[in-house]
């Protein structure tokens, strides 16, 4: 097990300092790492750009958003898989990542967050010399 995968080690709605009692929806995520950084993709259908909150507090990345669904007045629910419209999930970042340079985009309800690694900490190929 690698110890550098902190970003994956914590999830769920246990974000520090978030005493929000509302029930939350945990967006499903894909997280993968390449030589330059870590990418997180989250499914948050119903969330538009202005209802998305993405913030980094020290080493915690918080992904939060409200789904807005236009529902006609007086609608009676027959069936509902989705009963909560507030998405929330947080992740712990590790030291070699650069939270100041996070980039994010949102398209059709899919949030993509790119967390780059510090340049000096990117993996280097170590040459083994014959001796």
């Amino acid at each position: 097990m690698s110890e550098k995968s902190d970003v994956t080690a914590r999830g769920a709605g246990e974000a520090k300092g978030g005493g929000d009692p509302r029930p939350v929806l945990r967006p499903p995520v894909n997280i993968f790492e390449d030589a330059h950084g870590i990418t997180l993709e989250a499914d948050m259908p119903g969330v538009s750009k202005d209802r998305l909150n993405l913030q980094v507090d020290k080493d915690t990345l918080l992904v939060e958003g409200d789904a807005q669904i236009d529902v006609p007045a007086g609608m009676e629910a027959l069936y509902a898989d989705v009963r909560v419209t507030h998405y929330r999930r947080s992740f712990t970042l590790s030291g070699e990542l650069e939270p100041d340079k996070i980039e994010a985009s949102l398209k059709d309800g899919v949030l993509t967050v790119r967390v780059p690694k510090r340049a000096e900490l990117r993996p280097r190929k170590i040459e083994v010399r014959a001796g």
Partner: protein
Amino acid sequence: MFGSLTNFEGSLLDDLWRMQREMDEAFTRWSWPTGIRSVARGTYPPLNVGVTPEKADVYLFVAGMDPKALDLSIQRNLLTISGERNVPEREGVQYYREERFDGAFRRVVTLPDDVDPEKVEATYTDGVLHVSVQRREATRPRQIEIK
């Protein structure tokens, strides 16, 4: 401390989720009959159905779709939504989590008997497909005048 040495999450919330799932399964096994077309909780994609006297509305939560890859059909009051979501598999990366649904899906919704299959509208916004089907005028509740 130990948490970060492993990739397992093991949070209380996950345990609660699991408990809820087990309860659901336990109860549906021996309680009242379920709809013949109903599916297990957690089936992708999640959907909500609501009705007003004028129409029936179906909301399908499918993020990141090309609307052209969604296939909608209605037969009398049976609405079928199918499609395929392709989450590209990156090469040369290490995956830690792959929770996003990838592949083909299909869901069937039974709408009220009085919907008009000729009057359907569908829009896709922010990853939510909204299908709206009009109900027939004759069956709408109306005020009865007392003479």
